[in-house]
């Protein structure tokens, strides 16, 4: 047979046959997942831009404190920060998985020797990295325009709480990604995300909601992330933090189980 370009096949010594360092696979997978997401303007503008815009509007401009009181700008930094990181988890991870699974890209990766766990780990880490970027931007906006003043330890605590607090929402995103089709996932996330954030008191404090909705808030995972963030900035008593952390861990486990069942069900369609 004729051929155009024929590089010689690699000679394979025994040493070369060993598996690629699994850590390297995880790092490479994560690196490209972050690059891939960061280059999607249709993703970055709403997920990073909207929380900052809402925060500036409702946390800084509308309260109109003019620097005399920074209560509202501190409060809203915590709650819109929670709103932002949850959005990243549900859209970047949840919708991303649904689309890649439904449009055949995941099958190409599954047919390769890529460990499935590297795929999921990369999605989680990417969500957390984008979450940190969002929080740093929001903190800068809060400090400069909202005159938020806190000790350094509280700034750090806020970023850590919001970022790690996004993990249960990564699991929620994964569950949606495995339950929803590629075309319906974004619509489903929108239907869940905004009402859930509103009822959890992320837009206006839960205490200002009608009484019958307030009881409902406790049952929603974003409520606990919002409260945890308010603990971090010193608005809520720190003694409540453990309860919110426990609730977030509980929701995280619940969503992980749902995601796992959905994953197995999806495998069952093909493998089972």
């Amino acid at each position, binding site marked *: *047979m004729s051929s155009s370009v024929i590089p010689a096949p690699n000679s394979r010594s025994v040493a070369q046959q060993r598996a690629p360092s699994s850590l390297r696979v995880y790092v490479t997978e994560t690196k490209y997942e972050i690059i891939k997401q960061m280059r999607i303007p249709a993703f970055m503008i709403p997920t990073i831009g909207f929380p900052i815009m809402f925060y500036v509007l409702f946390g800084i401009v509308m309260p109109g404190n003019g620097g005399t009181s920074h209560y509202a700008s501190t409060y809203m930094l915590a709650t819109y920060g929670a709103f932002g990181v949850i959005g990243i988890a549900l859209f970047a991870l949840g919708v991303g998985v649904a689309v890649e699974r439904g449009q055949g890209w995941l099958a190409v990766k599954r047919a390769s020797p890529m460990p499935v766990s590297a795929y999921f780990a990369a999605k989680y880490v990417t969500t957390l990295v984008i979450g940190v970027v969002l929080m740093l931007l929001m903190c800068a906006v809060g400090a400069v325009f909202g005159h938020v003043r806190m000790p350094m330890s509280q700034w750090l605590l806020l970023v850590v709480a919001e970022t790690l607090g996004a993990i249960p929402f990564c699991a929620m995103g994964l569950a949606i990604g495995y339950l929803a089709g590629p075309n319906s996932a974004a619509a489903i996330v929108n239907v869940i995300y905004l009402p859930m954030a509103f009822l959890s008191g992320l837009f206006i404090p839960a205490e200002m909601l009608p009484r019958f909705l307030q009881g409902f808030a406790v049952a929603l995972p974003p409520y606990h992330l919002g409260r945890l963030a308010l603990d971090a900035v010193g608005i809520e008593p720190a003694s409540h933090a453990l309860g919110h952390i426990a609730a977030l861990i509980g929701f995280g486990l619940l969503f992980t189980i749902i995601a796992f069942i959905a994953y197995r069900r999806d495998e069952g369609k093909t493998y089972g």
Partner: protein
Amino acid sequence: MTATAPAARLTSVSKSYHDNVALRDVSLDIGPGVVVALLGPNGAGKTTTVKLLLGLAAPTSGSVELFGQDPRNTASRRRIGAMLQVAKVPETLRVREHIDLFRSYYPSPMAAADVYAAAGLEGLEGRKFGDLSGGQRQRVLFALAICGDPDMLFLDEPTLGFDVEARRSFWEQIRGFVSRGRTVLLTTHYLEEADALADRIVVIDHGSVIADGTSAQIKQRVSGRRIRCTTRLSEVDLRAIPGVTDVRYDRGNAELIVAHAESVTRELLWSDETLSNLEVSGIQLEEAFLALTHSKEAA
């Protein structure tokens, strides 16, 4: 274990999706170093066969082996590469980045420069996937399939939607890669493509293997002529004429696919003296192939 152990093997495999039977009792050995084309119309079960061998789907019954192992094993996945039909590939990564990522999955991947050369991607390394043309995108998917320097390559409809020019040039790329003693399973619904690339052609239709042989053997079975005419003979009468493999009707005219035009024409004129508008022509490969699948179905 031995040189003759098959690279891939299906043993009495059936696969159903809910009530749809995609494969019925298919047994197939694919020897090492052989280029096999799985040829069949849409929905014949070609992609299902590939998915089973890649461990992306489980057989309803029967067994599937890749290098003597479960196809889901990482060890067997390290020895294969697959070009699948994908609706959407991440568009914001550059060609170089996609290939770098897939190379990282394999223990001894090809050098990146060799991958670009073998897939015809030189000069496109810095392009984002979303900025590539349809043909270039297929080349990237081909590059992802070969970058691990696999012993066995799966190509599922690699040139679907290509124009003739692009298809021929892509065949060169595939030939260049497979001439190095790799095992290949190619699915296609173009007989011409199977003919151009494969040592062995397995024709599959409605989930069953209906023919299996070299390109010459398959072509011999599907060669034939088409006779068009206006006749008062019924379809049953027409089918009863020896050498008629298929009968269709087109705007009141009968269309016969036949093995030998002369004997059938003689028979037609003898049986129906009112016969008119007689026309004899060669048949397209596609029609020949349909004739083969139809005649088997009737049998």
